[in-house]
């Protein structure tokens, strides 16, 4: 099953992202909203109007759903010029020539591709083709704009530029954007809400910071965030109200949950710590050695070794550490997460008494 029991509401004017690894069902979901694929069962409504219902046997064709679709490979028509590509949809709606011209020029200006109006797609660069595709999709002023990994074919620098463009367009057009991507950074920076999918099942539907700081399970915690979260397996030594003592071969500490948890001794759990919450300071008695150090100018990613365990830490500032250096480390803040053996979130809190 490509998508299983998906239930969500997309608010007007929001920018939501369908995020997940390859094969998780995000493109399928997008195409179902568009009407390019038919769901087996369920209801889809757009702007209050039912566009699909398996019960009442309604299935409105994509053309009548008032949506726009941006394809991953742009799907520009190679035998038409940029102007003709954008105008085609409007001509089909029987707009008169003057109206078409005005609208096309408006879009060319909005996307800053006016000088390419007479060119063919093959004569344009990837970024320019992308903008033509966006212009073509926006031409008919659809209420909902669906985008299937539109930036994945662009190089890194261009991708950054286009992200800001898209965010700006979202504000200008005031349409609802539904965006598919496997790039968690894109999802985090662009959306108002992220819908995370894995193997066809919805994992979490929340704003970016909610997904980042309060993931519902291990998968979400692992998928979002760069560098990835540290997930360390532990066994429960003792559990008294909010204080849970955990230990494994290399570390032991007390996890101070925000609410009381009833765990049993010898329960298997996972602690999730984001790299920015592993502080490196000389004072801590808890020692680790540097396995590798990756400075990128603004921040440095350090891989720390404790016994047989490895942790990733991020420190800001232009620091570098020779391999093998011994460092004292500390787990800071109160956004450290505790997951059950099955992967569900049990609670978040702080850590103390590390040994």
């Amino acid at each position, binding site marked *: 099953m490509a998508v299983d029991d998906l239930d969500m509401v997309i608010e007007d004017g929001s920018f939501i992202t369908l995020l997940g690894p390859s094969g998780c069902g995000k493109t399928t979901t997008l195409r179902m909203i568009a009407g*390019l694929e038919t769901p087996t069962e369920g209801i889809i409504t757009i702007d209050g109007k039912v566009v699909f219902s398996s019960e009442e046997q309604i299935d409105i064709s994509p*053309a009548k759903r008032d949506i726009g679709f941006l394809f991953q*490979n742009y799907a520009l*028509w190679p035998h038409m010029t940029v102007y003709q590509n954008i105008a*085609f949809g409007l001509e089909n709606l029987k707009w008169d020539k003057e109206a078409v011209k005005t609208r096309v020029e408006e879009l060319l200006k909005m996307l800053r591709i006016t000088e390419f109006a007479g060119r063919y797609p093959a004569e344009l660069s990837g970024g320019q083709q992308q903008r033509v595709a966006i212009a073509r999709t926006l031409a008919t002023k659809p209420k909902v704009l669906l985008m299937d990994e539109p930036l994945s074919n662009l190089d890194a620098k261009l991708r950054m530029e286009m992200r800001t463009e898209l965010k700006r367009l979202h504000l200008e057009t005031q349409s609802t954007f539904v965006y598919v991507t496997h790039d968690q950074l894109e999802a985090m920076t662009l959306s108002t809400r992220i819908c995370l999918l894995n193997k066809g099942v919805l994992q979490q539907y929340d704003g970016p910071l909610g997904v980042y700081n309060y993931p519902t399970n291990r998968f979400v915690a692992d998928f979002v965030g760069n560098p990835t979260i540290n997930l360390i397996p532990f066994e429960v030594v003792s559990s008294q109200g909010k204080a849970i003592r955990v230990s494994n071969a290399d570390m032991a500490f007390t996890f101070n949950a925000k609410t009381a948890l009833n765990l049993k001794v010898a329960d298997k759990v996972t602690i999730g710590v984001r790299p920015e919450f592993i502080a490196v300071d000389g004072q801590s008695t808890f020692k680790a050695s540097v396995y590798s150090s990756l400075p990128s100018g603004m921040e440095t990613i350090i891989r720390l070794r404790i016994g047989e365990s490895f942790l990733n830490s991020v420190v800001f500032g232009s620091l570098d550490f020779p391999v093998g250096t011994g460092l004292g480390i500390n787990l800071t803040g109160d956004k450290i997460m505790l997951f059950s053996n099955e992967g569900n979130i049990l609670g978040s809190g702080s850590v103390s008494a590390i040994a």
Partner: protein
Amino acid sequence: MGLVFKNAVEKGIDVIMDMRYRLKGFLRKPHNVILLVVFIVLCYLTLVPMVTMVRDTFLVHTAEAKRLKLPANSYTLLHWKKVLVEASSLNVFYKPFLNSLATSLGACLIAIVFGGSFAWFITRTNMRWKGLLSSLCIFPYIMPSWTLALAWYNLFKNSLVGGAPGLISAIIGVETPNWLAYGPIPIALVTGLHYAPFAYIMIGGILRNMDANLEEAALMLNTSRFRIMYRITVPIVIPAVMSTFLLVFSSAMSSFAVPTFLGLPVRYQVLTTQLYRTLNGLNPGQGYAIALLMIILGVSILALNQKVVGLRKNYTTVTGKSSNIAMVNLKKMRTPTSIIIAAILLCVSILPLVSFAVESLILHPGDYSLGNFTTQFWFGTAAQNSMANSEPGMLRNPKLYSSLWNSLKLSIVCAVSAGTVGFLAGYAIVRGRGSKLADYVNNLAFFPYLMPSMAFSAIYLSMFAVQRGPIPPLYGTFALLVLAGTVKYLPFASRSGINAMFQLSKEIEEAGLILGVGWFKRMTRLVIPIQKSSFISGYLLPFTSCMRELSLFILLMTPNNQVLTTLLYYYNEKGWNQYSNGINLLIVLIVISINFIVNKVTGASIDKGIGG
């Protein structure tokens, strides 16, 4: 009790409503509608003839009733016995079968060796005149297969057939040996050369699109060129070679004209010549049995092909990422190699045309002295041609012009109908990919290719000799020819349509769909213009095939309703060499010119249709 009944009725209504809903959804997609229509029509036009033919192998036909001393239209196993188990079967079936196999395998070998090597030279070395030679290479396929046969005959015939010796005998003064002039060797050679362009297109296609990185990786590991060839290049090319082999084998098995010209002088029978003898004569039952066996063989070959190669899922022809692999530098051998290859190609393409021209201008056969040349067979009046039964010279001959007009009319109409249906079928098959219906239509559309042309036309003749539903009897009409031609060439047209659609991503159409563009507009404004050259190639291939088709029409012609190819056969039977050679030349020139014009104007060509 009443409640149970009510529940059952409600459930029944639910099921029906659900089916109606599903049917509505199914029919909303244009490609499903096309698939359904094509499926029904093709079932009627391919499966019904098949079934009729199977039935006819057990039937006593009116023509045979007296001879067999059995009532007409009764059932019998006699035909099968005569073909498979009696003493006469050796000559009726087994010997011709072995002969067909031998010549077809030989033809495959020659086609692949010639076509494949040429492909390798063009794509992997720096030989000269690549552009010119690769266009010349297509010639043997555009020309009718028996063009080469006739040319060979002209060159190598000896006094065995009576009449005058051929050109070679005349030049070197010694009689050419029989094994060189007639029989399996020239048949295999000529058929093989005719299909060599097939091999060139298919193998060359793979070689050209092969990612150079594959060979370069081996080069980096210090592998010798030879090893690269046989451990990397050849295995990658094998699927194309297999496809070519199977395609050429099927075609060679059904060829009729070549074995007729080159085999009959020494009584070398193949399955197709046997077919003609039996179907045209007093043994139609045996003929159908032989035809059925040929079809079974063809289907097995197709199944083998599917298994080995499979329906290619990924058919992107241009990835645009591979760089040009360093060509083999022929250095000093560059010019000599190019000259040799050019010479071979010229022999195969241009020389036959020269020989036809020469033969059509000779008054007394065999006498190649200058004094013997005349233009009377071209321009002369009836009176001047008393030796040819007062047949007017070709360019003054009303028969020629009416046959020419018939050929053109027939080819154009067949091309339009086969091409259109083929394109629509190809579109529907690719869009409906994965569904069972698309699979069935795909196989059905290819089926006519496996039926020997002669058996095919015989069945159509008998099927449509009487009224069938709304269709009136079609005996002797132009419509029957069109029907037979359209169904026969549908396989090529649909292959071409499938190839064209495979290259087009479905998103191009979906982008239009979302903007509310209707199906017809999507096809005419988006799909067809983008794939213009492949689209037109789908029409060019049936046109070319039809212009040079003999075995399909030979049973369907009436004396007053000839096409150029049957007219040629008629003159050949009469022994009027000059006319048959002249017409041959005309056919070739017409077909080549039209191909050239279409190519220049639209960029379409045969190789885009075959799918290299």
